[in-house]
């Protein structure tokens, strides 16, 4: 549950632009997570169950043409997803996403490290990074299609454009967050470069980079869905058609699959992030209100 806190400290910093990001260091505030109440799962069962009941009643009242019932999503919908090979389509989409994401990290992380360590590079690149970061990438899709067509290249480029900002901005912030005194001490003691890298750079910047990778992966998934929806291809295209032909049970089943994938990947990386920042775990559990 402390992922919310992590998102803020990272998101608030990065989205302020690289300059804002670097200016913001040293101002980290600890975010206290509200203490979990007793019977957490009872409360969750009540609230989440209530929402599901609400859905079910709404579905009964409106009919399957407007909202499918929960059993029909889970049985008929998921059944069709499995039977008609939509799982394979989803897997193929994910594979392309991964290609784009690897490219995005290969560009974003080194560029971010450079921007974080050199003021000249930061000044030269920040106008583009900041402008592209705030520009809705969707508005660039027609241009990208003219450049790259509507095939694999186009989809990979869109994923890269969506995904590379967070690895970049977070790597820059991470490198900038390194304790200068430690670096100076290491230099004074003639520490070998790899030791500096292993024992100073990596522990300081690592959690930022992992957070960037996590947020970037979420963005890559967004890029994948919108790129495919635009040209009616793959998983995004499926969603579009299922909505248009009102096969809502299948639509919601496929949507559920995507949500679960996104949440599982996000939580796994968030857990790894917490593992890298043990000091943050220490703040959890103190009630603030």
């Amino acid at each position, binding site marked *: *549950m402390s*992922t*919310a806190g992590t*998102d*803020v400290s990272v*998101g*608030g*910093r990065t*989205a302020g*632009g690289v*300059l*804002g990001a670097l*200016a*913001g260091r040293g*101002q980290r*505030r*600890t975010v*206290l997570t*509200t203490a*979990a*109440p007793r019977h*957490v799962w009872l*409360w969750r069962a*009540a*609230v*989440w169950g209530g929402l599901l009941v609400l859905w079910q009643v709404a579905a009964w009242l409106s009919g399957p043409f407007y909202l499918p019932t929960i059993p029909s999503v889970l049985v008929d919908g998921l059944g069709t997803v499995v039977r008609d090979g939509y799982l394979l389509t989803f897997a193929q989409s994910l594979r392309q996403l991964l290609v784009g994401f690897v490219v995005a990290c290969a560009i974003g992380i080194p560029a971010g490290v450079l921007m974080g360590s050199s003021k000249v590079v930061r*000044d*030269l*690149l*920040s*106008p*583009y990074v*900041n*402008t*592209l970061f*705030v*520009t*809705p990438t969707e*508005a660039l899709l*027609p*241009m990208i*299609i*003219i450049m790259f067509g509507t095939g694999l290249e186009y989809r990979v480029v869109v994923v890269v454009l969506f995904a590379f900002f967070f690895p970049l901005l977070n790597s820059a912030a991470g490198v900038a967050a390194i304790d200068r005194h430690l670096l100076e001490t290491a230099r004074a003691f003639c520490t070998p470069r790899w030791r500096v890298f292993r024992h100073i750079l990596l522990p300081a910047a690592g959690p930022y980079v992992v957070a960037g990778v996590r947020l970037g992966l*979420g963005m890559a*998934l*967004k890029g994948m*869905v919108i790129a495919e*929806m*635009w040209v009616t291809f793959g998983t995004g295209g499926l969603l*579009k058609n*299922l*909505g*248009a032909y009102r096969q809502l049970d299948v639509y919601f089943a496929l*949507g559920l699959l995507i949500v679960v994938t*996104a*949440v599982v990947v*996000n939580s796994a990386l968030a857990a790894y992030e917490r593992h890298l920042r043990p000091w943050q775990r220490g703040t959890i559990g*103190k009630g*603030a*209100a």
Partner: protein
Amino acid sequence: MNPTKAVTTATVIRWTVSVVLFFVVWEIVGRRGDYTAIKPFSQVAGQLWSAMTVDGGLWRATAGTLGIALAGYAVAVVVGVAVGYLTGSSPVAAATLDPLVNAAYATPVYMVIPVLGIYLGLEFAGKVFLVVVFAVFVVIINTSAGVRQVPPGLLEMATSFRLTRAQKLRRIILPSAAPYIATGMRLAAGLSVQGAIVGELLLRVDNLGLQLLNAGSSFQIARLLAMSFFIAMLATATMLLARWAERRVIRWPR
């Protein structure tokens, strides 16, 4: 979190050099004509100028899109602050709602587009809803974090002095959480404009979406680049305005 840092002359010079170089390279590559999708900057600038000055169509489109963004933004801020306050101050709300908010935040929201027409239509209501879905979660998450970091000592003191709930909210929680809420509102501003443009492109095509797609479908490439450039500038202007507003709030006298 306050991005105020004295900008040095060297930085300004590097920015200028970098940007000028970009436009020069763009012009040269465009003139050589090796790539069909890259027209020289001068031609694009000409298209942009004529689009901005000829009949005001571009400005009407901009106003239409920004209207949708603003309506959705208002809803997102009100709902986001309310829900964020709830999850920030109530452990039960945090335990039950936080996982849902985090899941929604990690999910590609574009997924709602194919069925949005069924429930809300493809016009104003659908588009505003899309904007809200884009913008609301970042407000919730930041507000919640802001409420959680209110110093417990202050709240205890408020209790000892018998402040009412409303007084606590007004005098302690809100001022203390304001910088966080402001950050959420800044991020939401950019996302609102983005959501509105996505709505204009993928729900019923209209306003800025229409300007963009018209140029794209008729292969007036210079015009298309001009429109993309215009949207990028619009987004940048929104971001700068939001950042300025955020700084004003952060300096809010306590």
